[in-house]
């Protein structure tokens, strides 16, 4: 493995057991850092606002990204549209620590993702299942997040995607070796990465959970199911008391095995974000099926 690929995968290991929070400006970034976030994700609008306001969602204004970088010392990630090579090059030029090639923004390419191996800066990408995760890793992603359904505050899709990923990893791990090529063909995944999963029983990169976390208990649930950390988008800054909720979610991720601590962290946080029941959503309103 090349040094650059290794240090990019290694940075994600340092984020494990932590919470990465969506922020749209420097003030939110400071709140996130003070609450104990391990990184912030810069984007133009949080997913709940993208849903409400509609229109095309794009990369943030570079000035806002620079202000966020100046405001905090934790890693700063930023979102680029799927397939938008130039947004990603701009983010690399801004020296963000991680680029999220994200289905939450409006895709720029409905057929191809970015050739992430051509970049020095690492990428995180979303996935709903093992095939999707391995395709992104094959393109050069150094970290995966299961997608969930961003901006809904409904945890069911995050649970479905994480469970699906682990179920498929278990199938590959226990399959006889002669079945692996057919599995690779059927899930549309590179054979060498299927072989890695077969041999190691896990992805070759860190996997966080995203898309729907609104409460400390939601975050701890994803840790319980095997996520190595959690992304929280609208769940924090669309709630009544973002600072308190951010602290509580960090605490719950650290103490995911301790219900007494989660209970204490969950007390008196005020209103969570208003949710959307994903079962009632139109297919076209879903972000997760974008860029698979």
């Amino acid at each position: 493995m090349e040094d650059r690929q290794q240090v990019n995968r290694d940075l994600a290991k340092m984020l494990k057991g932590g919470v990465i929070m969506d922020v749209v400006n420097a003030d939110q970034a400071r709140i996130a850092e003070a609450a104990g976030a391990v990184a912030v994700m810069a984007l133009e609008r949080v997913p709940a606002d993208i849903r409400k306001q509609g229109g095309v969602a794009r990369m943030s204004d570079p000035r806002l990204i620079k202000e966020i970088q100046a405001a905090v010392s934790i890693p700063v990630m930023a979102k680029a549209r799927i397939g938008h090579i130039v947004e990603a090059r701009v983010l690399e030029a801004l020296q963000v620590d991680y680029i999220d090639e994200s289905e939450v923004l409006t895709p720029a390419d409905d057929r191809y993702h970015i050739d992430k191996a051509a970049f020095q800066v690492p990428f995180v990408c979303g996935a709903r299942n093992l095939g999707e995760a391995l395709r992104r890793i094959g393109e050069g992603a150094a970290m995966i997040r299961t997608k969930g359904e961003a901006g809904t505050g409904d945890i069911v899709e995050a649970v479905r995607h994480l469970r699906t990923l682990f179920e498929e990893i278990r199938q590959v791990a226990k399959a006889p070796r002669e079945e692996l090529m057919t599995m690779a063909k059927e899930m549309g995944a590179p054979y060498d990465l299927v072989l890695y999963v077969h041999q190691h029983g896990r992805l070759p990169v860190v996997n966080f959970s995203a898309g729907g976390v609104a409460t400390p208990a939601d975050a701890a649930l994803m840790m319980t199911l095997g996520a190595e950390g959690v992304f929280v988008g609208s769940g924090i800054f669309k709630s009544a008391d973002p600072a308190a909720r951010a602290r509580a979610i960090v605490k719950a991720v650290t103490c995911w095995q301790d219900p007494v601590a989660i209970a204490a962290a969950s007390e008196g946080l005020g209103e969570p974000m208003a949710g959307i029941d994903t079962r009632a959503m139109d297919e076209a309103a879903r972000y997760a099926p974008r860029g698979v």
Partner: protein
Amino acid sequence: MTAMRVGVLGLQGGVAEHLAMLRPIEGVVAGSFMRVSELERLDAVILPGGESTAMGKLLAEFGLLEPLAARIAGGLPVWGTCAGLILLAKDISNDQRHHLAVMDITVDRNAYGRQLHSFIGAELIAGLPGGPFPLVFIRAPRITRLGPGVQALAKVAGEPVACRQVNMVATAFHPELSGDDRFHRWFVELARTAQTGIASRKP
């Protein structure tokens, strides 16, 4: 030989990687810890890489700052990697915050730049046989001052990247990510010597 109980601070970060390095070492029982009651039973502690601001905040919330600082002052062998080094440092440049503040060094956080500047090298480390050791630097802190009692163990471009002050060891790089267990074995030996020393001083 009694088992050496090594605890990796389990609040956040590269915990599993340290445990995977420690577990094959004979005579070592390794686990993660995040409670004061767990700290009391340990013979040596590793503070892993991660985000120092997040870890420092959680250390305070879990009531670990003072008990851990007191045990280290009392001679508990401790090794901080990257963020763990920042937790140990007495002074952090351009930052009023400090955490355990037990080791007489000054560090500059993320001084090697952003993720684009993370790199892998190799250098000889004092006391470590077997040739150059792989050095994995990830958004690494820079050690800008060593106090009089602190010894540099390795340097990159003339600057210290690993140092020791009696029972305290700090590395700006990540041996737990290097696939080479020599540094972990060396730390366990250091801890074992300290343990024997403490035991022999008992009346």
